[in-house]
């Protein structure tokens, strides 16, 4: 008999939540693999599968038993186990008793720390079949399920009710039950195409047998099928699908046997804003909109049915009917909303609570308007458009359309502002206020939009921090991290040179937070946003490290753009050959100065410079100071550090030949002053002493 065979587990359920399905699938496979490894069960590849009614994992070549394992229990040290006469002590006897053996069965364990008594035994590896139900149960219990449910009379808890459990190792069913459901070899196919039970004789046939039963159990295969089918159908309909990755995932999670259908709606609905049609089709109905080459929507959509219908035209007609009603509803909102100007809705925002402790949405929009104006004046632009945009920015929350499609906030504001005859800059800024909404999303292009987007996010973060609800771990219910990252992206990628510290202080001062310390809150806000900057860089493809970030962070630059320039300079510096020795020297100097308790304002007395190495360093420092002054003024930090890199030889020479802590106080202080000057030059850019650069990386 072979020692291993493929293993299949399938959890058969009622329809699982589509947005969570892929995650559940991967977490189940990952958790199971971890449990198998922890149980020392050998195996080859692990593959995950999922459809609306099942989560499955196939583990290739899973061993039939654990390897046997030698157990070593450490007892008392030999010095304690035997008395001076070499007789066994009660301590050693007690240990032997605990191990269930006679004292003479104990062995010795020696290490460089000493010698101990020990008990060695061989634990027979358990059979895989005995372990599997428990391991599967463990993996299921640690799935990331926000809310588990019970059903019927049972106490089992899962995402949705569980109907069958398939546990197959090779050709054999593993006896046992999971979540109180006895395991077997039966699965089920498509609800309507193959309603009966289906027997799986071995794991290798799982996918093909299910395919016969109209289930594509492989998520990725199903997704690819759908992507191709949607594309083909869109072409047939005369265009390209307007798709997003999340929608493909969701539709994949809603179907076991995807069948594309092309539907149509009345051309007249195309006069609605594009976003409205896309939201109606995609987020409400999970249909794929179709657009022509110029990105104009066509009156068509692709829907993925989960059925090869006997009468596909009726399925199509049904879907078209739904979309007709939905678009008619949207058209009603569009016309009705336009009857009231955005500006006339503003007062009603006083009745909408923004957050307890932070006033109404009206209050928030007033704060954002002040902050956005501050951003605008820093950028040297006229602020009336910004203030107008900010004051109208939240009014679309009260429209029927945004009530129906919350995700269209901002976009609808732009349309309604334009319809009200507001200036183009105002409408555009309103439309851009929530950008970027997600990783990789577009950034606001207009200055007013940038000002509004930064102010809105900064106010959001400031308010929540002021309430003392800083995100922790995975809990970030207000999406503050995303907002902070958005601010960072706008400032850096759009090159906005803002006095960020001033904006932070202004927004904190404007929060209704009672007697909290504004200085602490401002520092907290600065740290929170710059912390995201760290994530922004570290997630990127570039080679920035936490240490480089810390070197710049020590400066707490006022402008994030300046922060960025310093960071890039440090990254370039690290690649220079002298960097490692200069970083070390900075560290050494920092320590010397700290130990000597040197004030910042001692100055160098040139007449006290005597030794050649000291003179060489002094002259180099003076020269470098002259050279870097204009570079600093133009924030050319990279060249500042490149210039300073030339100091490596004089610095090394100084430390090799000059005694800093000499007994002569005047000489000592003068040398300390020279070192302080040197260190200050580096600190103009960043605290390079925080870098630990290995020789290899410096070359």
């Amino acid at each position, binding site marked *: 008999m072979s020692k291993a065979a493929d293993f299949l587990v399938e959890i058969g359920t*009622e329809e699982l939540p589509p947005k969570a399905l892929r995650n559940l699938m991967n977490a189940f496979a990952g958790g199971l693999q971890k449990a198998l490894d922890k149980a020392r069960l050998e195996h080859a590849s692990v593959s995950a599968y999922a459809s609306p009614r099942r989560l499955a994992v196939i583990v290739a070549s899973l061993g039939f038993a654990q390897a046997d394992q030698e157990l070593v229990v450490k007892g008392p040290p030999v010095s304690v186990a035997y008395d001076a006469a070499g007789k066994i002590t009660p301590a050693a006897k007690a240990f032997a008793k605990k191990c269930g053996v006679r004292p003479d069965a104990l062995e010795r364990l020696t290490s460089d720390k000493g010698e101990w008594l020990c008990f060695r035994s061989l634990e027979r590896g358990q059979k895989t079949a005995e372990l599997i139900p428990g391991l599967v149960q463990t993996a299921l219990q640690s799935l990331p399920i926000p809310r588990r449910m019970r059903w*019927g009379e049972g106490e089992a808890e899962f995402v949705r009710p569980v109907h069958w459990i398939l546990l197959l190792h090779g050709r054999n069913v593993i006896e046992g039950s999971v979540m109180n459901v006895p395991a077997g070899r039966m699965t089920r196919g498509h609800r309507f195409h193959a309603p009966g039970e289906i027997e799986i004789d071995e794991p290798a046939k799982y996918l093909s047998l299910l395919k016969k039963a109209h289930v594509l159990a492989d998520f990725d295969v199903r997704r690819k099928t759908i992507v191709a089918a949607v594309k083909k159908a869109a072409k047939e309909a005369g265009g390209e699908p307007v798709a997003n990755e999340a929608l493909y995932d969701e539709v994949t999670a809603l179907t076991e046997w995807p069948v594309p259908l092309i539907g149509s709606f009345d051309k007249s609905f195309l006069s609605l804003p594009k976003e409205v049609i896309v939201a109606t089709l995609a987020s409400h109905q999970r249909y794929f909109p179709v657009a022509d080459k110029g990105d104009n929507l066509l009156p068509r959509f692709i829907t993925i049915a989960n059925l090869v219908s006997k009468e596909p035209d009726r399925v199509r007609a*049904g879907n078209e009917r739904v979309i007709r009603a939905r678009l008619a509803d949207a058209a009603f909102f569009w016309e009705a909303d336009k009857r009231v100007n955005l500006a006339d809705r503003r007062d009603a925002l006083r009745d909408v609570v923004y957050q307890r402790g932070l006033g109404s949405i009206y209050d928030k929009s007033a704060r954002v308007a002040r902050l956005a104006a501050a951003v605008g004046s820093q950028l040297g632009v006229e602020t009336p458009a910004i203030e107008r945009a900010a004051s109208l920015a939240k009014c679309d929350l009260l429209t029927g359309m945004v009530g129906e499609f919350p995700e269209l906030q901002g976009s609808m504001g732009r349309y309604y502002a334009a319809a009200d005859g507001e200036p183009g800059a105002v409408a555009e800024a309103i439309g851009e206020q929530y950008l970027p909404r997600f990783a990789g999303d577009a950034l606001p292009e207009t200055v007013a939009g940038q000002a509004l987007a930064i102010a809105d996010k900064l106010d959001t973060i400031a308010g929540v921090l002021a309430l003392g609800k800083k995100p922790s771990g995975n809990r970030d219910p207000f999406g503050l991290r995303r907002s902070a990252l958005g601010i960072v992206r706008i400032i850096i990628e759009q090159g906005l040179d803002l006095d960020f510290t001033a904006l932070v202080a202004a927004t904190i001062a404007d929060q209704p937070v009672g007697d909290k310390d504004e200085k602490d809150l401002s520092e907290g806000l600065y740290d929170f946003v710059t912390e995201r900057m760290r994530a922004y860089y570290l997630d990127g493809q570039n080679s920035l490290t936490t240490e480089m970030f810390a070197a710049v962070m020590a400066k707490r630059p006022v402008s994030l753009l300046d922060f960025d320039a310093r960071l890039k300079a440090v990254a370039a510096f690290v690649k220079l050959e002298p960097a490692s020795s200069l970083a070390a020297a900075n560290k050494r100097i920092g320590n010397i100065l700290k130990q000597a308790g040197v004030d910042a304002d001692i100055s160098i007395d040139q007449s006290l410079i005597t030794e050649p190495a000291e003179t060489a360093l002094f002259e180099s420092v003076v020269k470098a100071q002259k050279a870097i002054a204009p570079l600093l003024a133009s924030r050319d930090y990279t060249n500042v550090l490149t210039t300073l890199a030339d100091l490596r030889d004089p610095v090394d020479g100084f430390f090799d030949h000059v005694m800093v802590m000499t007994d002569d106080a005047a000489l000592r202080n003068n040398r300390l002053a020279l070192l302080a000057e040197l260190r200050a030059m580096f600190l103009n850019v960043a605290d390079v002493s925080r870098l630990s650069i290995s020789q290899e990386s410096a070359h």
Partner: protein
Amino acid sequence: MKKDNPPALLTFQDLILALQQFWAERGCVIAQPYDMPMGAGTFHPATFLRAVGPEPWSAAYVQPCRRPTDGRYGDNPFRLQHYYQFQVVIKPSPEDFQDVYLESLCTIGIDPTVHDIRFVEDNWESPSLGAWGLGWEVWLNGMEITQFTYFQQLGGLECRPVTGEITYGLERLAMYLQDVENIFDIVWTDGPLGRISYRDVYHQNEVEQSRYNFELADIDSLFHAFDLAEHDCQRLIELKLALPAYEQMLVASHTFNLLDARQAMSVSERQRFILRVRDMSKSVAAAYYASREAMGFPMVESAGPPQRGASQR
């Protein structure tokens, strides 16, 4: 109707009768609509109260629902302030609940090998009932026709065992089955005494009730009525009279909905009223549980297992 295969017209009342017949055959108590205004079939004591505690229960019934804010003066083809739900509850939720539901669709002429039927995640939460459950909305070719929920908590109490709830949207189903695009065009009955439409039965009611809900309901009286109902609810709970106390909660809940339609509450006030209703729901659920417990949960023994075909008592 479809040209290819003209089926007999299923009228609105045929639909109700077919569903009643179907669930009666599966052993459900065919309850009647509760005689008080409520926002959903879940508020019927045959659902809310019966889902509390360990006693098995199953019922099916039509419940008129009032949602004052949904009124459109009879002008909107899809929205009404008064409409019908067909409600099925079974406790404990049976293993084959989904399958039986799908069978019920076949009985009303929805063939799952023709139509694309999907269970799409939709979790239910009612702040005013202190309740939540997990389940789906059921899609028929992309249209929501049913809410399907496994109750997890009601009135703040854990549901043990779990009650399964199916809520059919009768007007939507009827519109689909009759292929009409306007609720008011639904054929209610077509018999020897003539063809009667939904319009004939309810249009005037929509127009007048919308006026009342949005324009005429007296706000001061409503606030007062809410206070009275809340007060009475508490008084009755102290007297351990869960059922009359529950009715006062229903009064308060509907009064709240009217105040909502009159836009008489600010957002934060609205939230406070919801919490007041929830407190009533919780007290009632606890009182009802206690009263059944005092009786020794009489239905735990007497009822057969709620399987298909098994009749209650």
